[in-house]
Structures are given as C-alpha cells and as structure tokens.
C-alpha cells in the first residue's frame, strides 16, 4: 500500500496538480493576510476557505483523479495485491498530497505573518489540522462515489451533490429543524446535529477558539462547556475519526463487491 501511496504522490507531483494547489493556497493565504490587516478577521476568511473550498477541491480532485487513473488501477488490480490496498492507497496518496499543499500553502504565509506580529499560533494549527481532515474525508467520500460507478458524469454529479449536501443543504435542514422546534430547548440537539456533519463540526470547533464565541450567548456556552471539556474534545476527535473511517469502510466495501 505504501508503494501505491508513494506512486500516487509522485504522479501528482509530476503532473503539477499538487504544485498548482500549493500555489493557489499560497496566493490566497498571502492575499488574505495582507489585505485584511486584522488577524482575527483573516482567521474568519481562512475558516471560509477551509470549510467550503477544501472539501470542494477534495471532492473534485478525488473523482477526477480516480477516473483519470482508471487504466493504472485496472493494471494494479491484475496484480496480486489486495483490492482494498489499491483503492485506499489511491485515496491516501491524493489526500496526503492535497493536504500537504494546503498546509504548506497556508502555513508559509502564516509563518511569514507570525514572524512579524505576535499572534496566537494554536488556532491556526487547529485550522490546518481540521482542513487536512476535511480534505481527506471529502476526497475519500468522492472516491467511494466514483468507485461505485463507471459513468464519469454520474460520478461527478453524485460527488458534487454529496458536497452540496454537506456544505450547504445540511445547514438548511438544521435551520428548519431549529425553527420548527423552537419551543423546545435545542442546545443539545444542535450540538448533536453538528456532530453529524464534519464541516459543521469543524466550523464550531474553530469558532469556539476564536473570540467571536462571545457572540454565541447561552448556546455558545453550552457548546463551549462540552467541546472545552476533555470528554468533549475526545468525542469531537472521535467523531472526526469516524468521519475519516467512513470513506475507508465504504471504499473497502464497494471495491470488494464490485466487478471490474
């Protein structure tokens, strides 16, 4: 499996996709830090990138890379290698190279900024970690989708719908639910509901670290009490782990079942 991961990373480096994303994040990172002036403001901008763009890039790239390397995958499948290793290797290879572009692309501007001004680094590290996790999750989910269908258009479509569901529609339903059951105490419900969406989970975790959390009133206090506690942190990390394991299980399952 390691060999496959290594090969994918090398391949991505060679056809310059990793470099492209790295440069993209680098540009965005510098632009945000230079133009927004205030660091807490730039943190919010970074948050938007991590929450929307990183999953989207992961989704698109997962599908694209899978369909582009169909021939190679078929070749590998003919070899005496476990199917799981082939697909998981592909996934991890793509995730690691995308994640590295993200971490370096945003990390370098931050280090440059950090060298000039005294700012809290831990929030940013958390942001990058969550970005890495979100990228990995969405690459995996989109690969699971594309492994299940040979039709490229359908694969792209499903993967995009999945992203849309998580990034946008889910919040819509959450909002509807909050409005529908407004007469009940909803903090616990909201807390649990955010756990079921990695994007929301990441968003809340970061928001609570930013000083903006003071705006969140009683609900925010409930969240902070939970996520601030050891149990909460363990639960949140555990849920995020589950989210990473989900594509793993899906890919393994689909790959085993499917006739190539």
């Amino acid at each position: 499996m390691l060999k496959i991961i290594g090969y994918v990373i090398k391949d991505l480096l060679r056809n310059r996709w990793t470099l492209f994303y790295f440069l993209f994040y680098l540009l965005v990172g510098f632009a945000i830090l230079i133009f927004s002036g205030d660091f807490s403001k730039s943190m919010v901008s970074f948050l938007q990138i991590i929450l929307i763009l990183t999953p989207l890039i992961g989704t698109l790239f997962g599908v694209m890379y899978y369909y582009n390397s169909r021939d190679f995958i078929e070749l590998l499948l003919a070899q005496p290698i476990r199917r799981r290793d082939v697909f998981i290797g592909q996934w991890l290879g793509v995730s690691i190279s995308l994640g590295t572009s993200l971490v370096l692309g945003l990390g370098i501007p931050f280090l440059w900024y950090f060298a000039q001004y005294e700012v809290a680094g831990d929030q940013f590290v958390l942001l990058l970690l969550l970005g890495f996790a979100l990228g990995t999750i969405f690459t995996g989910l989109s690969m699971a989708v594309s492994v299940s269908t040979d039709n490229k258009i359908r694969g792209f479509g499903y993967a995009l719908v999945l992203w849309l569901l998580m990034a946008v529609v889910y919040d819509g339903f959450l909002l509807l639910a909050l409005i529908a059951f407004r007469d009940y105490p909803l903090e616990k419900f909201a807390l649990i509901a955010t756990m079921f969406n990695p994007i929301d989970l990441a968003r809340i975790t970061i928001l609570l670290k930013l000083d903006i959390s003071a705006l969140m009133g009683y609900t925010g206090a409930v969240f902070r009490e939970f996520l601030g506690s050891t149990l909460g942190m363990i639960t949140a990390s555990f849920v995020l782990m589950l989210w990473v394991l989900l594509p793993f299980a899906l890919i393994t399952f689909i790959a085993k079942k499917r006739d190539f």
Partner: protein
Amino acid sequence: MLLYFVMTLSSHSKTIEVCSDCEVRSIKQAVDLADSGDTIMIQEGRYQESNIILKVPRVVLIGKGKVIIDANKENQAIIVFRAPNVVIKNIVIKNVPFSSTEELAAINILYSSRYTIENVVIDSTFFGILIEQSDSGVIRGCTISSGSSIDVYEATIGNGIHLWKSNYALIENNDITNMRDGIYFEFVSNSVIRGNYSYGNKRYGLHFMFSNDDVYENNRFEGNGAGVAVMFSKNISMHSNVFSNNWGMNSYGLLLKEIYDSEIKHNVFVHNTTAIHIEGSTRIIYEENDLIENGWAVNFIGGSYDNFFYHNNFMGNTFDVAYFGRVNNNRFEENYWNKYTGYDLDRDGFGDVPYRPVDLFTYMVNEIPETIVLLRSFFVQILNFAEQVVPVLTPADIYDPKPLMQKWKWSDS
C-alpha cells in the same frame, strides 16, 4: 485696618508639619490640632494610621514627597465629616479592609461640600473614594485600584469613585482599574466626568443611576466586565469617549436603560460584544460615532422611541443592528455602512437603494437564539444575500433611506 486683616489671616491659618521626628508624629494628631483654614503638611514616610476624621472646614491635607497612609486592614483611611472646603492632595493610601456590612473607603466624604481630591493614589482598597451628600467637589488625577486581580468575586470589591446624592461634581483625569464599578453615580446631577481611564473593572467602567443633566467626555472605557451602563437618567451628554474591548458573554460597550433626551456624539466603539444596547430609551440622538468591529453594533431590545442615528460609521461589525419589537419611530439616516453593496448612479454621495441593517440571520438569532450555531455557515450567507435582494422576513421599516457611500468625516467640536 489692612494690617489688622493681614494679621488675623496669618494668625488664623497655620501649617502643621507631620513627620516621624517632628513635634506632631501622626496625621491623627495633626487633624485634632487643626483649626479652620490650616494646612497639614505630611512629610515623606509611611504612616500606619486609619480612621483619620477631619471635622473642621477649610483644612488642606497635603503630602510632601512619597507619603503612604497604610490603613493596615483596620478601617477607612480618611473621613471628612461636615467639613466643607477640604483639600486632600499628593498622598498614597493602602490596605483598606473589606467589609460585608459597611462601605469602607480610602477617602470617605460626608456632608462636606466643595471638597478637592487631587493626585491621590489608592491601592488595595475596598471602596476607593466615597462621596455622600456633598456637592461641588473635584476629584482629579487620582489612581485607584483594588490591588486584587480581576478574578475575585464581584461582591468583595467596591467601586472606584462612588458618588451618592452629590451634585455638581467634576471627575477628571483619573485612572481606575480592578474595582467593581470604575465610577458609580447615584442621584448625582449636573456633573462632569472628563478624561478618565477606566479599565479592567469587574462590572462597569462607568455606572449611572438616577443621575440627570450630566456630561461625560473624552473618557476611555476598556476591557470592563460589562462596559458602561447608563440607567434611569435624563439629559446625559456623552461626547468623544472611547469604548473598547468590552468583550465577553454579557458585555456591552454602552448599555442604555430608561434614558431620555440624551446625546451621544463623537464616540468610538471598538471591539465590544454589543457596542450600544438600547432598552426603553427615548429621544436619543446618536451622531458621528464610529462603531467598528463589534459583535452587535446596535441592539434594540424594545420600548424605545424616537432614537435617531445620523452620520455614524458602521464598519466590520458581525451584526449591524438587531431589533426586537416595533419600529416606534426609531430612525437611521445618512449613516455609512461598510456592508452596503448598493450603487450611486446620480453621484450625490448617497446610495440609491436603502440599506436594511437587520439582516435575516440577525433576525433569526433574535427570534431563536440557538440558530447562532449556524454563524459563518455558507448556507446562512446565501440566505442573507437572498433576503437582501428581496426582504421577506426582516423588518422592512428599519432602514437607512440614504446610506452614505463614503465613510463620514466627523465635524469639528
């Protein structure tokens, strides 16, 4: 005749010196010796004394060099009782004890008008300067701190400068920190609070109750537990103050409750959870204020009539205006809103479409507080945009008909 006057004057007012090897060794002794019009000159040193009671008028108590009065956690340091025209200057007061039954202060002035307190440093105290039923006083250039950290329980520290039923006061250029309320006014009218720096206080930087016709200007209120509260008062002028970093769950830059006929002008509100919280306040003019990077810039809770916002700059606030209840003739006109995305085709400096400062999300958070979990969610941003284009839910009557295209430059004065 003239000689007679000079002689009576000189014979009547004497200077009593206090030092460790003078004839008079304690301040208490000096106070007992003092007659009306005398000066008590305290020489440099540390005086372990408390409960110094001044009862004669026109006495000047002045420190020369570094004079420390250490109350040793026994009692109040200096009490002025029924003695008008007293001056207290250039001393340091320390270690006034906490009491749960009495308001023990470093300097307590009772029934004594025209007092002057200048350059007094107060450290480790329960209450700082406590003025009761004494008109026309001046408190200037004092530094007051409870000496304890901000983490202590609110009830165990007192107020920095506390005035009760004392009109015509001038509170000027004082530094107050780590107290319960920095400056507290209750039944204090026709007074001026100017150039003070009140920061890191446990509750309010400045707290007004039932105090009419007062002015406060050029003060800085920074990082106080709950900001500044002005309650149940009329005719207050608030000019050129800075309210900053009053940040926390229950923190306000400026909290207005039951305020009538007041003017708020040339103030800067930066980085407060809620910059201006308005509750039951009527006929207030907000003119040429800068509201920058606050959580909520303006929060109307209800029962407020005829508030008028004119030529203010709203920049980078998470929520510009939150609004509960009916419009009640509260108006916004010719303000600058950095979130305004309209256009100005006729180039008259005003946007051609009105700006609605209450966006959908603000409205929802007001109605259902739990929806705050969707703060910064992409979906909410899309909704807000849609609502801006076609308002359905948000109060349509709260709007600025002539939003400015450029940041408003304050006029002079």
